[in-house]
């Protein structure tokens, strides 16, 4: 039910197409597993927020279990799931949320409003020509994690 309305991508060509064809909208790619409970919770929040952000954002789910997606998993340095990567006009958008990794959002969101706020901030920054934006959420809403360099 969580991913009922959101497209799930399991092929690299699909991911390539959605990155290339999403124009003038924020593309939110959630990398995770459908069976993972945290991913399920995150997917439900995303599905609720998808309607509100539909005018300026597109949300898609990417299955990290797929073979073809592994290249993206390695390219995006995805080590923790769920991880969310943002794009705008096929350009990667970074967000400074105070964590060690600005290239993606690691973990879930507390509510759909957090999703909307983050997507809106990214959209506004992208429309102004900024490739990195500041996270609008308070620190308590941002999941904490530790980033290890090659298991070091």
């Amino acid at each position, binding site marked *: 039910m969580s991913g009922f309305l959101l497209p799930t991508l399991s092929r*690299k*060509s699909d991911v*390539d197409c959605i*990155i*290339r*064809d999403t*124009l*003038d909208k924020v593309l939110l790619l959630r990398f995770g597993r459908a069976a993972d409970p945290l991913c399920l919770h995150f997917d439900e929040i995303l599905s609720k927020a998808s309607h509100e952000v539909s005018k300026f954002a597109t949300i898609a789910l990417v299955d990290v279990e797929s073979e073809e997606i592994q*290249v993206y998993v*390695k*390219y*995006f*340095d995805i080590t923790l799931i769920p991880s969310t990567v943002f*794009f*705008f*006009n*096929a*350009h*990667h*958008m*970074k967000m400074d949320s105070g964590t060690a*990794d600005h*290239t993606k959002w690691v973990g879930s969101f507390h509510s759909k409003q957090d999703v909307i706020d983050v997507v809106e901030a990214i959209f506004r*920054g*992208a*429309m*102004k*020509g*900024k*490739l990195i934006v500041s996270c609008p959420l308070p620190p308590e809403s941002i999941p904490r994690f530790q*980033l290890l*360099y090659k298991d070091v």
Partner: protein
Amino acid sequence: MEPVCRTFYLLPFYLILAYPPPLPPEIAQACGATRFPSSCHFTLSQSPDLSPTVQLLSAAVAAPADALHSSRSQAESIHASAAAARHWLKHLSFPALCLSAASAALPAECRRPLNHDQGRRHKYFPSHARALAAVLARFHGKLSDVRFFLRNPSSLSPEHAVLNRLWCLFCRCDLRELGSSFACSNTVKHLASSEHLRNLKEFLRKHGGKLDRVDSFRVSEAELLKWEKGCETLNNSTSSSCERSIGPSTGSSKDIQYALTSSDMDNFEKNSINSFVSNASHSVMPLQCPTNENYDNEHDPAVSASNPHIATSWSMDTRGNIGLTNTYVFGSVSRHLSDGEPSCLASDAKSLIGWPLSNAIDQRTDSNGGSNEVLQNSMPISLPSEACQANMHTGAPPPWLEISEQNIANKDPNVYRLAHPSSSSGKSRKLNPKRVGAAWAEKRRTELEMEKRGKTLPKSCDANWLPNFGRVWQAGTRKESRKEFQMEKRKLLENESPSGFSSKIHPYISKRMCVGSDEDCVHNGHVKENRNT
């Protein structure tokens, strides 16, 4: 009895005895003092016990005496108030006279805002100025309709004539169009009359209006002449045209052709179409301006030689324009051609109006044999088949879009974008051009549009395509990080392939160190080999 007699002596009442039985004279006198002496007398006479007392008699007399006093005082007060009323009526009569004079000067519909009781100075009051402005504005609005028909004379059907009425504010007369054959005919003539001008000036002078607005409420002589000419032309064309006309119906007041015709009349006279003028009736009006000189007279070549002006004027362009100014469709044609350009109004590829001349000639009644003769001499032009190309009426795209399509074929993205303002391209124009990936978005949108049209494009996306991504552990630009990843990926693939690649990692040994040891150089060579791949 003595005081009663005295009372009766003082009171000047006339004693009447209507019916005898005989009563004592004193009682008879007392009865006479009452209001109804006969009934009193009769009652007292009938009474067996006739014993009038002082009280009875005084009571009979006292009531009328008191009433007399009050009634007298009331009568005096009424008389006094009547005198005051007469006095007030006298004072009120002057404003009433003023009102009657002012209302007589105004029509019924305008009386309400301009009624006043302030005298002549009222016309300087702001309220009066406002009321006057409102009245004049209202009348001016009604005159705007009249002016429309003044500029565009049109015929008036009898059933509509009854409905057309106008109340002239200044002349206080009702203008009706009964019996007139043209719309607002009587109104126009009235507005152009000297009497209306005189009344107009008097009204403005009386009510404080500015005299510079006189022209806006009347019809000048020039306008009247112009209108009369238009009516005459309309009359002539109506009498000569047949039932089936080309283009809009004859006599339509909203055709621009008449406006052009009337303005181009002078041009027509100046043009050297003398032969046609001499032969043609007023029912047939040729083009006032030279048309396309590529006149293909395939039926009678001599016509052009004998009547070059006619050929020019009637030439219609072989691709379809027909130079008949009495057919209202071609007013625009004449307008364009009046600029002196001989080129056809129709585009190179399409004809503007594709009715053949032969139809037009067949439809025209022979009101004048001479005109028909000239028309026959001019020969109908048979339109080629390509004159029936698609035009705006058939839904074909305009020529400038065709040009843009050609540019699209030449892959001109700018022209394509301007020529096809689709919703997406229009949206991109509104977006910030400095946004992230603007160039990419435009390029990609163009590619998508072309793919939608079915045009095959070289596939720019291969299986190894990756977006620019700022990786976590890499420094430098995103492109460099992508290239680095692609290199790593390639290396990984080569390491996995059984092509003699050793996965054993050797430490780095420089060349200087390599000089001393052969084994080390072998290893270095191997490592170098790996790095170069």
